[in-house]
């Protein structure tokens, strides 16, 4: 009977993750030379990292890149098939944040925010992963040295304060799963394989999506 219950819960979880669609931004570093332009894509769909739906332009807001020095650079993407795409030059070593929001023009607050974390040149700093503004998912350890088999602590913050919640984890390779966080207990995300990861959370009608990439080698998300 207990086993039956677990099967039914697993079934429901699978069905939910199969059919819910997410919004995210994903930036990947070029494998080749430094100073090459990287592509960042604002996506929407059911099949991370592939985008199925082109989000309406009127909803796009707060599209900006935050560099290692804290400088904020706005970007303007163009529609390309089913994604909004832009080229970004990550020309300084350190932690970069590519973010966007979905906001209805008549509303004051976005309904969804997305962020992609990049570590360039191996100069990692977990303190720069959070902006302490609104709802966000924040990794609690360095991303640049992350490799398959490692465990990454992740927290949900609301205006910088940890809150309880459920994080949906969708890896590029592998199946989706859920993690629970507490106010004083981050969730432990086991990294099963290299590739991009999408972490999403919903709270009080707002959603947040975080993406990052785990490299095959120990130089995770870096160059």
């Amino acid at each position, binding site marked *: 009977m207990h086993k*039956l219950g677990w099967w*039914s819960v697993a079934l429901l979880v699978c069905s*939910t993750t199969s*059919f*819910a*669609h997410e919004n995210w931004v994903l930036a990947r570093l070029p494998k080749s030379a430094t100073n090459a332009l990287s592509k960042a894509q604002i996506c929407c*769909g059911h099949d991370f990292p592939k985008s199925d739906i082109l989000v309406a332009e009127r909803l796009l807001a707060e599209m900006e890149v935050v560099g290692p020095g804290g400088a904020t650079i706005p970007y303007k993407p163009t529609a390309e098939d089913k994604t909004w795409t832009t080229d970004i030059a990550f020309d300084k070593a350190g932690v970069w944040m590519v973010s966007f929001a979905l906001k209805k*023009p008549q509303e004051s607050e976005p309904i*969804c925010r997305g962020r992609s974390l990049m570590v360039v040149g191996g100069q990692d700093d977990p303190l720069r992963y959070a902006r302490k503004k609104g709802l966000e998912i924040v990794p609690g350890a360095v991303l640049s040295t992350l490799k398959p088999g490692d465990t990454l602590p992740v927290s949900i913050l609301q205006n910088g304060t940890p809150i309880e919640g459920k994080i949906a984890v969708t890896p590029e390779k592998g199946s989706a799963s859920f993690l629970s966080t507490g106010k004083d207990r981050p969730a432990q995300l086991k990294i099963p394989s290299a590739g991009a990861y999408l972490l999403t959370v919903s709270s009080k009608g707002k959603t947040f999506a975080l993406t990052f990439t785990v490299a095959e080698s120990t130089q995770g998300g870096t160059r």
Partner: protein
Amino acid sequence: MTFRALYIGVCWLCLIAACYGHGIMASQVEGGVGVVVTYDDGSPVSFSEAKVFAPGADDKPGLTGVTDRNGCFMFRPDTNGVWKVAVDDGMGHAVTKTIQLEGKAAVPIRETKVMPQPYAVITGLAAIFGVFRLGCLLEAQIRRQDEGIRLMHISEGILSGPVLASGAVLATAGIGIGLRRMSVETTPKTAMLSATFFVASLIHVPFGPSNAHLILNGLAGILLGWTVFPALAVALFLQAVLFQFGGLTVLGVNTMTMALPGVVAHYLFRSIYSFGKKPKFVFVLGTVLGAATVCLSGILLTAALAWGGRPFLNVAAGIVAAHIPIMIADGLVTGAAATFILKIRPDLLGPSRLETAA
């Protein structure tokens, strides 16, 4: 064992519900011409793009605008006919509502919930396979308990060739009409009722020397109309292939005896329902039509046996008598289901006369 089977069945039904869990729906504004659009959880689809298509102009919107904070969008039509309002929140959720204008009044038409075709197909398959699993478990139990008469299924080798051929031709025609009327949006509903029929026939309750089981072709007919033909044909085909209930050569006759009364019930229900839609009235109407559908199926079955299987004519009277408890049970279940549907999705039962006269 039964509990386990039911539990898994419920889980599968929840799975199907989850498939729907990401859509939006629209309802017509009362007292005006417009729509209120909400997500499945009831929250409004606010500040979303709305396009209005005038009658006969489905390609180009005659008016565009934005829903308000409550997900409401209203417009002032200048002509009678069928208007369409399409609302898109820009994040993959869209819905189209059809509003018919007659005179000064807006007559509600059944709403169209946009479901991408692959999901409609997946939902239908999930319903069929989910309930198939439930059916397998129930069948295993039934086989252990009872090997009695299986009512309403004529087996192979009983009917003559002309009867079998006539049944096949008529059933094919009915299935053809049903398929022509089955849209992508109604596919999950059809699959669900097909699965319901499939399972209902497998739950046997001991009754006297034999046993009885629900048929629910009345309920399926009321909700599906002509689409009941393909729905029941699929269920009967699976029963014949998987459980040896009925048979492939008698599939046409069995489909006819089950589905045709359902279509009759559909038209009777729609014509009588339009006189009022109080729960008690709908319950009585559903009960009577549910029972009458089983009765009519019994009569058709008897007629088929009398026409094509003279040696089995003496069984016919027994069949009709054996159907009396099924008629009662089917009628009550159909009445209760119709009353429940009236509360949650009255549009599935069709427009009432009160609305068309408004």
